[in-house]
Structures are given as structure tokens and as C-alpha cells.
């Protein structure tokens, strides 16, 4: 990384953020190392597991594949933006109710992926949930309890 550092400006979890760093530095490293937002996890570093998922301009992306230069001028949202400690989001609540998180390392990514799905489709069937979560690997659950969590969240969202 012999290139010059550059200034990057973006909106992170509703806050204007400016950092000076190398253009090719991965978004995940900026989030975790520079900005101390460690809720975004690294499982593989190659775009396969979804543990590092974040939203950029409303799109779900794997932050281990995104050089920070691409983030300039965008709106980024991470798991830290989801709920304060006191008021859990309905998706998070459903994951707790249904044992959708076991070890918890895939969970932030799963919750973001579930939210991406439920924003598009508030009432997905089981196959649609499977398809939409296929980019998020979970080694603990066998996915049953994650599907149950998303279904319950979908119910809660529609009831609102």
C-alpha cells in the first residue's frame, strides 16, 4: 500500500464521517479498526460468508469486498445502527425468541440480510427466505431457527 492516503467522506449510521486512509483499504477494516465498530464480523474475507454484511445506499453488500474509495459519498449502515440496547428491533427480538443466534458470529450479517429481505417482501415464504439468506453461512443452526426467526419478524412487522 504505497499509495497516498486520501480523504473519504460518507454517512455512517446517520452520522457524517470523514476519514483519511488508503483508497484500497477494505470497508470492513475501516469500520472495525479505524472506527471501532466491531459488530461487523469477518468470517472469510472473500465474499462467501456474509458475516461482514452492511448496507451501502440501502443495498446489502459484503464489506470485505469493498475498497473504501467506493464508499465515498454513500450512506452506510451497520448492525450498530439497528437498535439501541433498550429497544430491540423486531428482527433482533425474533432471533432471541427463536434461538436464531447460537454462537452469534453470523448473526449481525443474518439480521441485516433478513432486514434486506423483509424490506423487499414483508411476507416471504420459507423458500424465499432460504434463497435470500443463501449468501449468509451459519455453521451452528442448520438454519431452521433462523427461518423461524425471520417468519416471526415478518409477522410482527405486518402487525404493526
Amino acid at each position, binding site marked *: 500500500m504505497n499509495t497516498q492516503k486520501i480523504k473519504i467522506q460518507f454517512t455512517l449510521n446517520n452520522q457524517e464521517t470523514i476519514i483519511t486512509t488508503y483508497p484500497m483499504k477494505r470497508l470492513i477494516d475501516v469500520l472495525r479498526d479505524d472506527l471501532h465498530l466491531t459488530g461487523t464480523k469477518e468470517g472469510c474475507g472473500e465474499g462467501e460468508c456474509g458475516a461482514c454484511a452492511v448496507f451501502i445506499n440501502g443495498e446489502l453488500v459484503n464489506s470485505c469486498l469493498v475498497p473504501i474509495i467506493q464508499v465515498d459519498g454513500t450512506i452506510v449502515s451497520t448492525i450498530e445502527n439497528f437498535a439501541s*440496547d433498550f429497544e430491540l428491533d423486531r428482527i433482533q427480538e425474533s432471533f432471541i425468541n427463536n434461538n436464531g443466534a447460537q454462537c452469534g458470529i453470523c448473526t449481525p450479517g443474518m439480521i441485516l440480510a433478513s432486514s434486506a429481505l423483509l424490506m423487499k417482501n414483508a411476507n416471504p415464504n420459507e423458500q424465499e427466505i*432460504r434463497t435470500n439468506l443463501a449468501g449468509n453461512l451459519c*455453521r451452528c443452526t442448520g438454519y431452521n431457527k433462523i427461518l423461524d426467526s425471520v417468519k416471526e419478524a415478518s409477522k410482527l412487522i405486518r402487525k404493526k
Partner: protein
Amino acid sequence: MKKFSNLRRVEGKSKVTGTALFIDDLNFPDMLHGITVRSPVARGILKKIHFDPSINWNDFVIVTAKDIPGQNIIHLIKEDWPFLVGERINHKGEAIVLLAHHDQQKLSEASTKISFEIETLPAIFTIDDSINKKEIIWGDDNCFKKYYINKGDIDLAFKDAFHVFEQTYRTLHQEQLYIEPQGAIAAYNELEGITVWGSLQCPYYVHGALTNLFNFSNEKVRIIQSETGGAFGGKEDYPSMIAGHAALLAYKAKKPVKLIYKRAEDLQVTTKRHPSQTTIKTAVDEGGKLLAMDIAFLLDGGAYATLSEVVLSRGTLHAAGPYFCENIRIKSKVMATNSPPNGAFRGFGAPQSIFAMERHLDNVARSIGITPEKIRTINFIKRGQTTATNQVLDEKLDFDSLLSTTLSKLKKDTKKSKHKHIKSGIGIATFMHGAGFTGSGEKYLASVAGIEAMDDGKIKILCASTEMGQGRNTIFAQVVSETLGIDPHHILTPAPDTLEAPNSGPTVASRTSMIVGKLLEHAANGLRNTLLAAGLIPEKYTEAKFIQALKIYKKKYGTLKSFHQYKQPEHIKWDDQTYQGDAYPTFAWACYGAQVSVNTLTYEIKVDNFVATQEVGRVLNRKLAEGQIEGGIAQGIGFAIFEKAIFKDGVMINNSFTNYIMPTALDLPRIHVYFKEWNKDYGPGGAKGIGELPLDGSGPAVINAVADALNICPDTIPYLPEDLMNDMEFLK
């Protein structure tokens, strides 16, 4: 007694909000990063280490075997596994040099500027080459351990038997694939010694390894578990290695050092499930009754003994399955090869030998013209009968009912495919899994666990058992609160810290809920009795009264702790020499069934339905228990038809998530889980261990279904589309 069987995961909130702190989420002031430089060859003698002069090495902390203050051996069962290569290299990827620096970029550049002068020696990579002593790479005969179990007289039984059938079955490596890679952080100062934070299953294994590594007294080493992102056995022995490396760097640097593996490195150098080769010869009568079983069970242990002998033991003790037979011989061996050591993976040898037995029974049934259900029904072991080790099973045991539950749920969903090229099939597997340590294991461990009352009236759990997603925190909180009759939110379940947590043994062997949970139940009763004796609570009390009593006691006497130590029940008898007796205090019993469809054009195998019925004593917490079973089955399906580790020079070369394929949400069916709760004599409230059980039967159930669909006989897993293609080409 009020039950809290619906208690939600107590650390759930921190996990869904992303605030749970895993090892890579921890940082310390002035912390360095570490990296490991490894052997490029599988076997040889290290002559020299070259440091490229283009790098200013004074900038780096450098550690080699020469820097080790104590013993260069990871203390496990046999003392043969070095932290760092001294002279002999026994597998590719073995650690030789450790580096630390503030800047990770500089670190990874520098790590490529170290080279080695090595006198290469010929290496061996297969069980056969090891048995045939193509090279002697360990001891006199490459054999880490062997067992011999004999019951009855098999030679006599084989003579004049109606039908004798012999076949060999194989299973290959499987990676645990916890989604959080391995890692540790170490810090050192003269006063306190070494402190390590790590993603790990067994704090006291790491503690033992580090006291030896530094020649430190017990108080000078402290191990603290960080939130652990999956383990499945993979974080049983290997964390001692990483913790040791981080600690050596921190000791030399006098600064904290973080050592986190990248996924590719983790896949290449950490332990995997032992590859196996099982040859089974059986004799049956006209009706299919088993008259004799002769089983040869072989494992590939890799380059060092590590946990192999106990993995072999469990595989051996499960090899004959849940079937009654008068004449059984089991011979087993685990052999050395020049690969990274294979280690613990959920099931611990049993999934390998059970795969062989469950495939074999289907093969025998087919060759004598009876159904897979029939051959099992005829041979199921029953209450009062004896296992291969002559253990008399004395509990309710009704395999027919497990089988019929599974079959009824399975058949209901069966739809005949409309497409001619899609063939569907059904397969079952019946099996058991011994809960807790084998034989006298628990007796020697003599685990201790306890609880402590805090000033604010809360109760803290003190034990070394770890949470890794399986639900230790929740189950312990539930057991203690049920025993004391107070709400679970009064129970604190901190991660183990060896400074205060007594050694409740490793978090392995499906023992945590059953064995340690029971110790906590005793400890809680002890604490209540103390308050009773002090006259602070009556026999019947309210929660408020109890909490008030705790506070008063604390004020008056300072501390209130209660511990309990495991004592083996008198009736459990085991002989380590002859391998005879009560191999396990109890077993979980199960029948799993799979329905698959196989596309004969694309060779794709899809599991359409999976049913798992098991007897596990009291189900403490249904959603947690189901989660364990479902997750284990997903791993078992992966073992059977997805996860192929490709090895070259003794190491995994498809070492990424792109090439090593674990099942996604799209690859799995809904898994249907049914519990029977017959025998409640064991753990807290009557629970048995369940953690490993689901891995044992899921692989063979799926492969038996594939065999049923196509009338073929797969004998090796993983069984991928290319393997199916080869078998079908062969049949043409």
C-alpha cells in the same frame, strides 16, 4: 419446582446487537499483531533460517524455538506436539518462526522474507503407507494407539454361518468450519505473568500448555475465554498452540500481542475430523440376525498424537452400533501421517465408525433380501442385554418406537417425482452416543463447579465450561434457578477465567449439561442448605426472602460459595486394560431418516426431508435442544454430500469458503426433530448429553437414501456429484 424450559438464550441480546466481544473485537493499548511463518515441506530437518537483509529486522519481535523458556511441547496426552519446530519437521505448515509488529501490512511483507534451509525427508500421507511402514515417522511402528475388544467367539460363529458379508468403508477429512477463525491475545508482565484471551473450548488445557511452555507456576498463567464463534471440537486442542504463540511473542515484546488466523491459514493448519477406514465382516442367519461382527477400524491421526487416542477410543466403542450380538471383535488403530494433526470434531470418531456400520447393515439387508428396517428391528439391543464391552444396558430402550416415529414422519412427506430422471429414496440410521467421558475419564477428571453469592443478591456461576453457541450459559442459569427456586435473571454466567473458575473439565464429549449441570445442581442445593442451616430461610421460601437471606449471610460472614466435585457412582465399572465394562454412564438413543432426490442427469443430490427422533432424558430447554440437533444434522449432511477437503503434500489445498462447500440455507431441507424423554436418571433434572449425537446418524441416513434411490452402494463419504457420476458410469 418451577421450570424455566422456555428460557431464552441469556447472552442473546449481545449477539443480535453485535456487541458480544469475540477475540478479534478486543484491543489493548500498544498492542502488536502476530504472524506465523511455516514449513514449506511435509517432512525434513531444519538446518537454517534466513532473514532477508532487505528488511530491518530490529523493527520486529522474532521468536523461534530457541526463545522458549520452558518445554517446547503442548501438554496433552502423549507429549510429542511442539509449539515450534526445533529440528524435525513433521508436516507442511508446521510453525517455525513467529513475528510481531504494530503494522499488519509490514508484518505480512516481512513474513515472506524468511526462508529455510531444510534437508527434505520422504513423507507419507495415507493410512496404508503408515501401516506398511513405508517410512517410520512416529515411534517404532507409526501407531499412536490401538484397542482390542473381544466378546464371545467370533471364529466359531463365522464357521457355518448362513451368510457372511465383508466390506470396507471410508470417510475423509471434515473441517469444523466455525465461522469465527481461531485467535488469541496474550499479555505479559512480571508480576502477574501471562494472561491470554482466546476463542477456545477448554481454558484449563490452554492453562496446562502455557505453564509448561514457560515453566511458570499455576498462578502465573491466566486464561480468559472470549465470546467464541463456534468450535465443534476445533477449538479443543488447537487454541493451546495459538495461545502459546501469542504468549511467546508477548513475553518477548513485553507488549500485548494479537494473533488471529486468516481463513486460509486456519483451514490449512488446524485440526480436522480424522479420515477413517473401517472393514466390517458380519455373519447373519436366514432371518438376518447378527451372529458375529468382526470390525477393523483405522484412523489417520496426522503427524502428532494430540487427542487421537481418545478419538479412536470413542470411535471403537461406537463401532458395533446399537445392536445385540453375542460375538464381536473390534480391532482399531490410529496411525501417523505427515499431515497437521487431526483432532476433535463433534462426534469424536463415532460418526466415522457409525457411518460404516449403518451402511453395512443396509448392504447386508439387501444381499439377503430383507428391508433396512427389518434387519435393524431384528437386531436392536434391548434393556438387559450387553454391548460389545459387556456393559449391561439398564434403562428403557425401545428402538422400535424410535424407528416407527421416524418412519411415520418420513413416509408422510414422500412424493414420487414427476420427472423420470429424478429418483427419490429413503434411508435410515439407528445409533447411540455415549454421554460424558469414556470409561474412567470422568473419575480421573474429578471436575469441580460451583456458585457464589454476590453482594447485590445475584448468584454467579463458577466453572471452566465454555459457551460456544451450544447454550451453556442458558442451561446453567436454568438449572441453578430451578434448583434454588428463583428467577433466572438472578443468575450471572460469566465466561470462564481461570483466576476464579475451578476446573470443571473441558467443554467436550456431550458432558457439559449432563455432568457439569449436575454439579451445579448439587452446588445450588448446598448453598440453599447453608442458608437453611443458618436459619435465614425456611423450608418453603419466596424469591424475595431468598435474595434477602443471601444478602444477610454475605454481610455477616463475608463470602458465600458452594462447590461440588464429581464422584463416579459406585455402580459404574470400567477396566481400562481389557476395555470391558460400562463405557459410558448412559447413552442417547436415536433413529434418523432422510429422503433424497437424485438427478441422474446433473448428478445433483438433494435432501428433501430429514427426520430425527431421539431419546435424551429430560429435554431441559426445547429450543436450545432442537438447535443443537438441527445444527449437528446440517454438519452431518455436509459430511455426507458436500464437504470435501482436498489434500496435497498432506495439507488442505481447497482452503477457502469458495472451494470447500458447507451447506447454505438453500441446500438443506427443514429438519424435523422429535424427542422422547424416557430415562431421567442422569444429569440435572434428568438430562442426558446431546451435543454430538446428531452428527453420528445424519451422514449414513443420507447415503442410505441415495443408495436406495439408485440401487448403488456408496462406501466413501463425502459423496459428491462427481463420485455419483463415476459410480453410475461404472454401472452402465
